[in-house]
């Protein structure tokens, strides 16, 4: 189901500007076409136009990791990515991760379940970014030990201080993946 969304405009705003560019993205498995200005970030596109607000804004400057999503399987700070530069990419957000988990027949993605079980969240605002980052870390396949996980997750700040529980949750999923 393709929908055309005119980015950089709203019901309230003026018509799309002459600088707008057409792109398409596959967001959580669905192809979406946009006509957007080149200065629209992937983060703002997800939040303001797609209403996929699971992806959070904590700084808008690449300093906190709250906006982490997976683009073609790699974790990126979506606040630093201009949407037009990702034309054709596969984007997975926290909302899509849940769907993937469901497809496997679980209620939640294993990371999501592990975060709940280990109470790896408090306010929950950094959580989608932490989970997407952890999935990116698993995809990379480098981190094995808890120290490596800590190092490799350090781009994702948590002011609530859930770090030890997050590390435990990620380790549980990593170890399960290893023994599979």
């Amino acid at each position, binding site marked *: 189901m393709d929908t055309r969304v005119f980015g950089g*405009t709203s019901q309230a*705003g003026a018509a799309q500007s002459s600088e707008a560019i057409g792109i398409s993205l596959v967001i959580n498995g669905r192809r979406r076409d946009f006509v957007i*200005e080149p200065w629209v970030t992937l983060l703002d596109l997800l939040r303001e136009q797609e209403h996929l607000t699971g992806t959070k804004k904590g700084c808008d*400057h690449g300093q906190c990791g709250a906006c982490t999503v997976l683009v073609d399987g790699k974790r990126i700070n979506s606040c630093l990515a201009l949407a037009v530069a990702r034309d054709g990419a596969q984007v997975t957000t926290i*909302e899509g991760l849940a769907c993937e988990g469901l497809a496997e027949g679980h209620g939640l993605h294993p990371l999501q379940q592990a975060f*709940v079980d280990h109470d790896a969240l408090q*306010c929950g605002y950094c959580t989608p970014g932490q989970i997407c980052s952890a999935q990116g870390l698993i995809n990379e396949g480098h981190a094995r030990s808890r120290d490596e996980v800590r*190092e490799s997750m350090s781009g994702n700040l948590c*002011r*609530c201080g859930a770090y030890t529980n997050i590390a435990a949750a990620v380790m549980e999923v990593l170890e399960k993946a290893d023994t599979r």
Partner: protein
Amino acid sequence: MTSPTRTTARIGDPLNRVDGVAKVTGQARYAAEHPVEGLLYGWVVSSGITKGRIVRIHDEGARALPEVVEVMTHTNRPQLPPFDHSYTDAVSVPGSPFRALYDEKALFNGQPIAVVIAGTLETARYAASLIDVEYESESHNTDFAVALTSQFVPNDKRSTFEPPQSRGDAHAAYDAAPLKVAADFHVPAYYHNPMEMHASTVVWEGNGRITVYDKTQGPQNVQAYLAAVFGFSPEHVRVKNPYVGGAFGSGLRPQYQVYLATLAAKMLERSVRVVLTRQQMFSHVHRPETVQTVALATDTSGRLQAIINDAATSTSRFEDYMETVCDWGLMNYACENASAKYTIARVDTYTSGDMRAPGAATGMTLFELAVDEMAYAASVDPLQFRLINYSDKNAMDGTPFTSKALREACAQGAEKFGWSRRTPAPRSMRDGRELVGWGVATGIWDALFEKTSAHAKLLPNGDLEVATAASDIGTGTYTVMAQVAADTLGLPIEKVTATLGDSALPKSTVEGGSKLAASAGAAVQHVCRGVAEKLLVAADQLEGQPLGGARMEDVTFAQGRIALKSDATRSISFGDAMSAAGLDTIEVEDSPAWHSGGSSQTRKSRNTHNAIFAEVKVDEELCVVRVTRIVIAVAAGRIINPKTARSQILGGVVMGIGMALHEETATDHRLGRVMNHNFAEYHIPAHADIQDIEVIFVDEPDPEVTPLGVKGVGEIGIVGTAAAVVNAIYHATGKRVHSLPVTIDKLLV
């Protein structure tokens, strides 16, 4: 390791957070995330000067953009009330509350001076960059050290301020004592920096009504404030905050973005969202900068003879923020002679305010640094020193505690940590090229309670809803409410829905002071008991009275049934009882009767305590410090949910580690501006900084402290933690650092 399901949830069970699934799936919507038809975006323009007046705002460039709807400034804003009392709120402090866009005056750097309102976020942001402001600057001072030359004690003090009480003759005793230490300590201002930036979405409903999604710790506080400032009748303002991305005190008072978004909505009669930038998060409330002078003296056996504990904190030019800084050390240690003085001093910033354990996170922590120095001066083990000078009662005013299991906390923490294997001399322990240090500190915080109302509604199938206008800022309030309700009526947790974060719900206190678990928990238990009583009355209508007219004390509620204690086979389901009485629902709304004096006649002190043990490893040449291990033993009465309570303590400890090693506000006093106003330069702990943290809850039954025996755990985890770390750094390196954070440069000298 999933939660037990379909069995009765009990207080004390380590259940999973009930809002966890909404948060891990991205379904939980925060203040800036509620979709609204026809929404406008407001972007705040911040003052570039610290003090003076705005001569002119050149907004032509911004207005020329087709999507810009308005540029709101002090010159064109809607009318606002003239007197201060309209702008006060439930937790404001004496003075003149800040009013954004009120007039041409600039009071602090980063002050909001205009809001650009546009159809898209991108346009509003771009247009704001086109605004030029002409100012007339006046001289300012943001340097606290300079401000201290005119420190003072205000006549009008906030109601929660507890002045320190001196005893004996501390100065004479200090002079006479054989062993003594004295030092000046300093902590910088700290910014709360919740991960979610302050944001508000104001929905213009028409007919003089608004619905506001706000980042706040008290929806009813914001409701009353907006009604008073903007002339709405209170029932026409509905404030919701079902999810709050952290706050730590920054959302106690209505923040300026909700004021600006509402002002813009009123001006345009449109829905408006205002989200602050991370930089702007450094333009409002913060923990005050603090200086503290601690002088201690003992006899030759390490018994305290004198405590002198003087402190000063920063406030703004327009309000007098005070916090309880000096009392904690005086309360905690037995010593016949103690004195304390507390003053404040004005700088040209926004007003400082409450941040996690206000006053204690700084005042007790710095005191505990001095205690360590005293223990070393007296050649007594620092843990032993605290036991030698232990006070079973509140040493400041002589009142007994409802409970104080600090001795047990010290013992259990020390055991877990392995304190007995510590060698006392600095630089005496090492691990390869790293020096190892072990440090200890203790902490104390209030156990507060405030009357709160709740609503409970039971359906015949056993579904139960409980609600109050409380907030869950990550503290676990949803879970506490659901768990207490399930426990009271003997239901599985899945049968209970907890609702909060809505000003239309029964009256609740703001989420602050670690009092909500005790207060909302008691309210929920009270109304659920009311439901239980009505159920029992309904059961009596059943033919043959299978429970034989039993009274509350004769029955139990479990698995959706009422059963006789004496004969569990005689039971009836909630549904049967309700249908016998012809009831579709049972509803109760009320607040528990509770007097903070409890049942006893004597006044008592109500406090939580902790003992923290820290291990650091310090690279001998580079002086890089790593906190490798923390054990914290907490005495906080009854723990409703050990899993979520543990997380609260972990969060406090992490913030305490940040105080010890990372966090610092750097202001350029020539500009009066916070220069490190971002996460790249204002350092908070990251994953790699945090290693093992072990939390122990010490058994501390205390039926007297609050109705549920709960003391609250949101803040005690930060109190003293930085001291344990800094004391460990001394043990590792032999260096005493008196100004936090302990950065590498301070160890290299």
